[in-house]
């Protein structure tokens, strides 16, 4: 890595080398049985240079080929974007705990045992359900060094466990599921099974949603599948800079219901997306995005921040290309109303757990529309059964402007988001 940096410095004003190595061990169950055990070793090195003021970029899996990597980066720098930033010098990083050596030492056989127990708990509840389950342990090492002396290095462990069950009756299919992840080993299969069992119970009967505007409760999973994609696009500093974010001109203004607060926080201990610094070596920080309905900040990397005349929020993330602003871990502040009380409040309405296809429309504009893959009908304060053949459509900016209540119990969804349920007064529903 040092050799790559050294060679790159000879031909460019500034250079940065980013190295990630990872080892993953996923264990897969199909049709209630163990099917696959895998090990994946990977190495990737990325070189970013600034040459004659322009950015050049190249990646490779072969760390020993410094010459090829530098040549590739130099070719792209001929017409790369003008670099508006300086790489960070040596900086202290906040202590963020993300490594637990216990993850590495878990034996594959222990993981397969956990998977078998998890499946047994779900099939024990509903004997004809067919489950797929996956458990995975991963260790990641990351290192960044740059020509201004900046250097960052950390090691992370991740353990995840999830299950999806399919129940087929005639041509009717019901999909249930739950997954959790952490930097610690997860062992509580009962907690995951309980969520699935509850979904199975609520979905036992079928109900029909009328085609009209209805009050809706988004469960934490529902919030993740319907509402977060448009918000992520809108708070991306890049979208703001381009003038394509509906929130771009709204900094400091109350755009959402005052009950709604959203925070980007990469410093929470032992969360899979936490980290001491971002992918450019900028220290991690907590960034409030919405404070009591008011737009508080956007997320920036170095380049976007420089163009927008502001500071990086330590939000650079690399998905194989140059760093881009991206959220780390999102937290929606819990409210005061229990889920049960929200349901009790509804005369006729829906509970949405999972929307399918909601992220396919005009996300930038805040529109979402999706088939209710898992959702329930509420009648006179009670969940009466599962709805099907139902599509809901809305716009997050209209929907979150007026919120009836925010749940008192927050939950991790997909590792990235911690959110309570959100109860909204009206959403357009169409059904067969």
């Amino acid at each position, binding site marked *: 890595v040092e050799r790559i940096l050294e060679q790159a410095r000879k031909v460019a004003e500034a250079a940065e080398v980013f190295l990630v190595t990872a080892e993953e061990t996923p264990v897969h169950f199909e049709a209630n049985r163990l099917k696959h055990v895998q090990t994946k070793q990977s*190495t990737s090195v990325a070189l970013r240079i600034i040459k004659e003021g322009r950015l050049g970029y190249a990646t490779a899996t072969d760390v020993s080929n410094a010459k090829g990597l530098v040549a590739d980066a130099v070719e792209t720098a001929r*017409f790369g974007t003008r670099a508006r930033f300086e790489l960070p010098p040596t900086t202290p990083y906040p202590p963020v705990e993300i490594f637990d050596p216990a993850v590495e030492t878990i034996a594959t056989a222990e993981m397969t045992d956990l998977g078998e127990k998890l499946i047994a708990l779900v099939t024990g509840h509903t004997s004809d359900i067919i489950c797929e389950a996956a458990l995975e342990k991963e260790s990641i090492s990351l290192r960044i060094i740059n020509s201004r002396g900046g250097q960052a290095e950390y090691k992370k462990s991740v353990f995840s466990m999830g299950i999806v069950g399919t129940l*087929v009756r005639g041509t009717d299919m019901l999909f249930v599921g739950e997954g959790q992840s952490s930097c610690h080993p997860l062992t509580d299969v009962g907690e995951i099974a309980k969520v699935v069992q509850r979904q199975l119970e609520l979905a036992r009967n079928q109900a029909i949603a009328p085609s009209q505007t209805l009050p809706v409760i988004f469960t934490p999973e529902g919030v993740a599948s319907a509402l977060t994609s448009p918000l992520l696009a809108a708070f991306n500093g890049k979208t703001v800079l381009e003038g394509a974010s509906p929130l771009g001109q709204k900094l400091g203004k109350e755009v959402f219901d005052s009950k709604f607060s959203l925070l980007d926080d990469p410093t929470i201990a032992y969360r899979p997306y936490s980290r001491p610094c971002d992918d450019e070596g900028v220290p991690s920080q907590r960034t409030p995005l919405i404070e009591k309905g008011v737009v508080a900040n956007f997320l920036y990397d170095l380049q976007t921040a420089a163009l927008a005349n502001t500071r990086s929020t330590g939000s650079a993330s690399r998905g194989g290309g140059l760093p881009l602003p991206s959220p780390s871990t999102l937290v929606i502040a819990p409210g005061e109303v229990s889920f049960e009380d929200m349901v009790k409040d509804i005369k006729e309405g829906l509970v949405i757990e999972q929307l399918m296809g909601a992220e396919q429309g*005009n996300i930038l504009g805040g529109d979402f529309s999706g088939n209710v893959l898992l959702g329930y009908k509420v009648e006179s304060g009670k969940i009466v059964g599962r709805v099907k053949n139902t599509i809901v459509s809305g716009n997050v900016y209209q929907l979150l402007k007026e919120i009836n209540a925010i749940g008192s119990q927050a939950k991790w969804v997909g590792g990235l988001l911690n959110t309570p349920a959100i109860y909204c007064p009206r959403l357009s529903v169409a059904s067969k």
Partner: protein
Amino acid sequence: MTDIGEVSRRLAEALSKHRADYIEARLEESRRSHISYRGKELESAGQSTAVGGNIRALVKGGWGFVSFNDLTDLNERLERAVAQARLVGKETSQLADVEPVVDTIVNGKDAPLTIPLAEKKQLLDEYNQIIWRTPHLQTSVIAYGDSHKRTIFLNSAGSYIEQPRTDITLRVSAVATDNSEVQQAGFSLGSRGDFDTMRHLHKEVEATARKAAKLLAAPKLKGGEYTVVLDPVLAGVFVHEAFGHLSEADHIYENERLRQIMVLGKKFGGKELNIIDSAAVPGLRGSYRYDDEGVPATKTYLIKEGELVGRLHSRETAARMGERPTGNARAINYRFPPIVRMTNTYIEPVGGSFDDIIADIKEGVYAKNWFGGTTSMEMFTFSAGEAYMIRNGKLAEALRPVVLTGNVFTTLNNIDAIGGDLDMNQGGGCGKGGQYPLPVSNGSPHIRISKCLVGGS
């Protein structure tokens, strides 16, 4: 750089000696480049190289799999794959019989690699300038990528297959704003290696930019059931989502109830409905000679005259269902084992013009182009990039983009007109089991679906 040819020769010997029911290895070297624009400025340009491989072992029905970039110590990795398979295996291994193949396919065209980055950029600059001549546009995204990869497949039965693969993709989208309203329009293209398909798109780019600006003034559809006409691009996405995924045998083979639902001979649609998946058609993005288990590509009828007649298989699913292998096991790259995937999936043309198809629709929706699609097997959704009302047999006002949804088991039966204008959409990438975007193509003539549920205000 490590030569994967040499590594494969060493590995071939090791595979033949090992004690597992079956072992295979795939080695891969690839080179890619990308150029992307956001707004007026070039956002990112980069190049990458990768070398890697995997070994997959089958013991008593259980699979072990290791993938790696580091090509040293392959014997240890081989041991590990076999040990993992042993840990899993408790039954008997079943794989459909396939003749071992020794074949080296020479690349006809590696065009994108021989074209300098500067020339690719020049073309994209032209497109970006066109977008920026359009009024009301706020920003744009142009993303170009190409890759060339050489794969060597070998297995314990003596197969040795070397295949090259070149893939090019381009996505153009334009974003228009007005106060806090934001609307977007876009298109995507792909090619199996012919860079010329990326040239001469100036008119399409201009039309896309204009569409985005026009959408700002378009009304939202009222949600509900409509007679819907799909253009070939969107109908291609529809056939992929609404039926293609359900015909992948890995969803079915171990689920007794699904096997009963998906029994061959079951009626899914009208007499005129024929659905095909074929990697054997040359030159499309889903085309290949051999799949990632070394099985020759085939043309598979999934639906013939409205009846289920076939499905897509890996060697294992074919054996377990007692059907013939179809050569549909694909992996997105060396980091993943192959799983059952579609290739080029399409509805066969019947006849009839677009005007005929919409002639007797009093009130309906014409949906074109695509944002995306997804399926749960039973239910599917897909979203149109453009939509228009149809009134009294004629196209009427433009609408905001719409999302359509349906039930696989009823919607195919509601196709009541199939046109003659088959067109293949090469711009798609399919996701399954964490493997995305896999190059596929899909297509159809114009089709009409009665009673289709469409989301709206």
